[in-house]
């Protein structure tokens, strides 16, 4: 199999192998914290932090770790970075930490991260793993940004807290509720598949 160019390695995370819309990973945080754009961005950035650093570490030490204990080791590495992210948020971004609640620690079970270590970082160079993580993170950030924008604009009439819908608009409260998250994501998935089939000429 030909190795991808660096550019392709990065871009695949944005669409072809977008972690949320194509791989269907990391759904829990995607649904839980996308009620507002600010929490969506914060969560995806925190996840990116953990993903990129974990990939770097795993790719650097992959030769030292016996195969039988690799999953356990990856878990410890990931959990440590998640803890660091959680602590830093609580210390320096308290209101956002409160808004995200228990979902920051839950980054540790975000299938995207462990999945990437197993599928990529453990088998590729540090440089490539970094690009891969960067791509996946970007895809994740975009996905959460899209979902949270839809939910906040339609659900509260605001974007990042600023009114964007005029007084003629009655917010669709369902968008902020769990139901809205599920339905919006379902529709977005359908749209993604539709675009995919149209462009690839199914």
């Amino acid at each position: 199999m030909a190795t991808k160019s660096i550019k392709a390695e990065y871009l695949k995370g944005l669409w072809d192998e977008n972690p949320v819309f194509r791989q269907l990973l990391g759904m829990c945080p995607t649904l839980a914290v996308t009620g507002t754009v600010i929490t969506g961005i914060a969560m995806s950035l925190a996840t990116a932090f953990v993903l990129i650093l974990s990939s770097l570490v795993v790719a650097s030490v992959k030769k030292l770790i016996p195969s039988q204990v690799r999953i356990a080791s990856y878990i410890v590495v990931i959990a440590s970075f998640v803890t660091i992210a959680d602590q830093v948020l609580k210390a320096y971004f308290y209101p956002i930490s409160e808004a995200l609640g228990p979902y920051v620690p839950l980054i540790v079970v975000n299938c995207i991260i462990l999945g990437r270590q197993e599928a990529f970082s453990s088998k590729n160079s540090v440089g490539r793993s970094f690009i891969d993580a960067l791509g996946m993170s970007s895809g994740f950030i975009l996905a959460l940004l899209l979902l949270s924008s839809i939910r906040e604009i339609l659900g509260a009439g605001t974007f990042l807290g600023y009114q964007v819908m005029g007084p003629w608009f009655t917010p669709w409260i369902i968008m902020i509720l769990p139901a809205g998250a599920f339905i919006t994501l379902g529709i977005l998935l359908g749209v993604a598949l539709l675009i995919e089939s149209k462009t690839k000429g199914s």
Partner: protein
Amino acid sequence: MELIAIFISAVLVQNFVLYYFLGICPFLGVSKKIDSAVSMGLAVTFVMTITAIVSWLINNLILIPYDLAFLQIVSFILVIASLVQLVEMFIRKISPPLYQALGIYLPLITTNCAIMGLALIAALNEYAFLETVVFGFGSGMGFTLAIVLMAGIREQLDLADVPEPLKGAGIALIVAGIMALAFNGFIGMLS
């Protein structure tokens, strides 16, 4: 009674899947047939109850007294990973047919956010021992309820005419959304 309130809350009012968004991966992946849904649900409930117990013990006997609260995330996930391994070995020994039935679902439980979420939320709410156990069992039951309901609906959906792009995960999520709306009706039950 506080314990009953916690149980009902975990199953209906604050259902782990439909309110907390935990356990979505297995919820989408394993809810196609009622049988597998029931098996997954029971396996998850079992692991959740034990995790509730063990995480409470670790948190309250080791982490908090020695000021090691920051090790919560690392210790919880390691406990869960080990527990799942143990449960898998245990089921394999005492009931091979059950092991066959659950198959690949067992290892999947490790990354099931529901289990980790359970440990974290119980710790966050500072539940006492018995409360944590009831919460663990209740959340597992809530998860099972959601996943079995979903499987029932999806078995019917298979026979319906779903637009191509929505087939699979898309329609499942939309159905989940409608279920979440329905469960909203349980809010205020415990006041």
